[in-house]
């Protein structure tokens, strides 16, 4: 493990706790970092890099000649890489993100994956979202957290998905998670008419129907959530004024809304955001550069906004992608579906640095990077050290945590 300088609250210019002392780092890992909020006030933002982001061209092993051998046209020249140390550096499109890294607010976990990798987008996404690489789970890992964390049952916003379809990650058994594409257009089209709104409200809770159904109460409850949630959310977040300029992209808009939800203190514990598509089979550079630059600009604006409202230490952001990509570039200046890739942990509670071991480019598994960190270790870290919940039942086993969080 490596640690670089880190700094807490750098964005708001508060305090600096910089050191490379490993002993001090260890000591800090045992107790919460100063200035961190109680677990009940913390939020996890999960960003899904959809389509399979190429990890090798995100965190670039520029000192390894094999990298350039496998990537004759796609390899990023060592001089262009935003260097982290003498081995790896970030894609040059990640400039604003590199500043967060330099401020000590980013942990990079290398080589994250799972056993017996599946190269299908669909299946691999499902594995990442359910944390179940062998069988088929009906709930997501965040869904199981929301079900079991003892959160207030009457809060409609314990978890919020900023997407037009509820992701598997947030499917729960006892927690109804709203999926919101954007505040505008969210809700019942009929609610524009006051009489309709009132009538709808009465009808969906019609409990004295002349039939019995095991689902009746459930239907009425969810209908009520749907209407009330759509009605209340815009009002609840209306008082929040963003203090940063977000890129005018879907990711920028999602993170702006995420900051608004965090800042409005709705008791939300997890927010899901998606970004993509990274499925770069053909002429990868232009697509990936655009998406990484968008990510870097949006995440920098997000933390600047959070900082300005005193929320930077309340929010941990975790990225993931269903897989990394094939080590050798293909004949179309793109890359095909691969396996292990790095995961980012971002926020004021993060101990910045590079964690885990970079997969060995000299020992590929059928042309792919073999994982060195089980993805459930990352989840266990987030669950135990950020959300303060036991992880074993949620991720289906006992996995070691990573010292990247306080």
């Amino acid at each position, binding site marked *: 493990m490596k640690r670089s300088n880190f700094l807490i609250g750098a964005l708001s210019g508060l305090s600096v706790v910089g050191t490379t002392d490993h002993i001090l780092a260890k000591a800090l890992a045992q107790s919460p970092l100063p200035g961190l909020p109680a677990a009940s006030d913390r939020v996890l933002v999960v960003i899904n890099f959809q389509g399979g982001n190429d990890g090798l061209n995100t965190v670039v092993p520029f000192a390894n000649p094999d990298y350039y051998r496998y990537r004759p046209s796609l390899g990023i020249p060592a001089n262009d890489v935003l260097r982290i140390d003498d081995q790896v550096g970030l894609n040059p499109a990640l400039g604003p993100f590199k500043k967060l890294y330099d401020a000590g607010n980013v942990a990079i976990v290398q080589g994250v994956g799972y056993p017996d990798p599946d190269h299908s987008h669909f299946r691999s996404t499902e594995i990442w979202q359910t944390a179940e690489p062998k069988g088929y*789970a009906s709930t997501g890992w965040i869904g199981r957290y929301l079900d079991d964390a003892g959160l207030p049952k009457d809060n409609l916003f314990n978890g919020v998905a900023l997407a037009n379809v509820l992701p598997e990650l947030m499917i729960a058994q006892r927690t109804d998670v709203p999926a919101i594409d954007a505040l505008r257009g969210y809700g019942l089209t009929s609610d524009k008419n006051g009489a309709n709104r009132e009538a709808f409200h009465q009808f969906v809770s019609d409990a004295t129907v002349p*039939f019995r*159904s095991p689902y009746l109460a459930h239907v009425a409850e969810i209908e009520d959530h749907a209407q009330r949630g759509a009605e209340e959310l815009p009002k609840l977040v209306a008082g929040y004024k963003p203090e940063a300029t977000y890129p005018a992209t879907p990711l920028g808009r999602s993170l702006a809304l995420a900051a608004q939800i965090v800042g409005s203190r709705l008791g939300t514990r997890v927010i899901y955001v998606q970004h993509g598509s990274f499925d770069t089979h053909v002429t990868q550079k232009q697509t990936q550069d655009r998406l990484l630059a968008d990510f870097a600009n949006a995440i920098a604006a997000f933390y600047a906004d959070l900082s300005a409202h005193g929320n930077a230490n309340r929010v941990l952001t975790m990225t993931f992608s269903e897989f990394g990509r094939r080590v050798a570039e293909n004949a179309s200046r793109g890359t095909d579906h691969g396996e292990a890739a790095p995961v980012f942990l971002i926020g004021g509670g993060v101990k910045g640095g590079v964690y885990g071991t970079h997969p060995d480019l000299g020992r590929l598994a059928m042309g792919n990077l073999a994982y*060195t960190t089980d993805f459930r270790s990352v989840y266990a870290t987030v669950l135990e050290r950020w959300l303060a919940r036991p992880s074993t039942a949620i991720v*289906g086993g006992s996995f070691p945590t990573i010292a990247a969080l306080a």
Partner: protein
Amino acid sequence: MPTTAAPVSASASASFRPAGTLDASRALAPYAGPWNRRLAAHLLRRAGFGGSPADVERLASMSPSDAVASLIRFPDTSSLPAAPPLETPPSRPLGIFRNAAPGMAADDATVSARKAFQMANNQNRRRNLIAMQTWWLERMIATPAPLQEKMALFWHGHFTSSPEKGTTAQELFAQNRLFREYALGNVKQLTLHVSQDPAMLRYLDNNVNVKAHPNENYARELMELFTLGIGNYTEQDIRESARAFTGWTFRREPDGSGSFFDNRGQHDDGTKTFLGRSGTFTGTDVVDIIFGQPACARFFATKLLAFFVYNDPEPQLVDQVAALLRKNGYELQPVMATLLRSNVFFSDRAYRALVKSPVDFVVGTHQLFGVPKVVPQELAALRAMGQVLFYPPNVKGWDGGSAWLNSQTLLTRENFANAVAQNPATMTTATWIAPTLKTMDPRQIAFQLTDTMLQGDVSSAATAQLVSYLGGAGQVALSQLSYENVDERVRSAAYLTMAMPAYQLA
């Protein structure tokens, strides 16, 4: 890194078995109680998608037994479009898919050829998928044999395949035709056909199951999810049966269609020991042996009951249906005839005891309002409701039941219902609405709406509210029902009727 592996915790889930007690002694005996539109509509929601008010009327005018018979014996469907308009996939230029040799960059010509091919291929797949989804939904809406389509949907969610691994639309459509052909056919024969179906061979990797490197994916899912269920076989049975399936693969024609190919050269001819028997088994023998297991009949009985009758059926009921399946040699038609005619099927416990699937909801709404065509926005709505035809979420199929219900899916359902009610064409296509408009009487209109759409499954309080809504309560302008506002008000009232809980329940 991983230290211990344990299955993901299955949090205690609420049971959605109906309240009350099963009368096991009379459960499968023919129903002989009162017969009315309410029960005819129940039958049509389960053995179809709800039907039009005229369909309900027609079934209500028969005896229960004749009504079931009219659904079980499929009427001629030759007037329906036989196949979706599928485009042939673009042909693959030679040589564009090899990897660049280490140290060698790709040349521009190869890059642009590959780019062009992949773009054409993706567009072709997208158009074909939309064509197939639209075709199937419109067929479900229009068919005079709704149970045939309902069974095809059942099998689609049971023997799952998707385009995910590069299966062509032509191959998926062939599988869909198989499900329709075997809708109420022999389950064992269907299982054998599915085991040789190109879309399935690809989806569960049997096309790479060869003697030297057996791939267990199909063998495992065949037993775990398709026929027996966990606990009724061992890991050794999976390994042995995977060997029996070696060499079962398919060939793809340039037009995108596939055909089964038994590659004897890749088949393991050795002796296998499977579920207690030994021999030089092939895949056919494995299917035979599986269908000799009592667990197999119970597995299908449970699935059929949960799909057609109610969730979490009692073990005694499962055993009775399982015995029926075995007695009939897995011929489904007589089994479904008994089940759909039975006391348990028409009992209060089964009534409105299922959640409509998104397909039930959308197709049923089309039938109710007489709208034959499906537009692309509806495919997007179905996705947001959680069901994409030809794209089951995984090999387990759709979970169904309470998994259909969350705020996101219900908002989409309600907004879909509102869009249908507000569609200008609705007032002419839904021929049963026009006469109510003329009455200009809130009471009559409310009765007509709740009676036709919900068979009166609404509380008197809600009916009173609907009457006062129609009469103008809470409306800003033109409060009393009049020629100026009746159209708009009835549309909204129809929408609000669809918002009542009964409309979500099958």
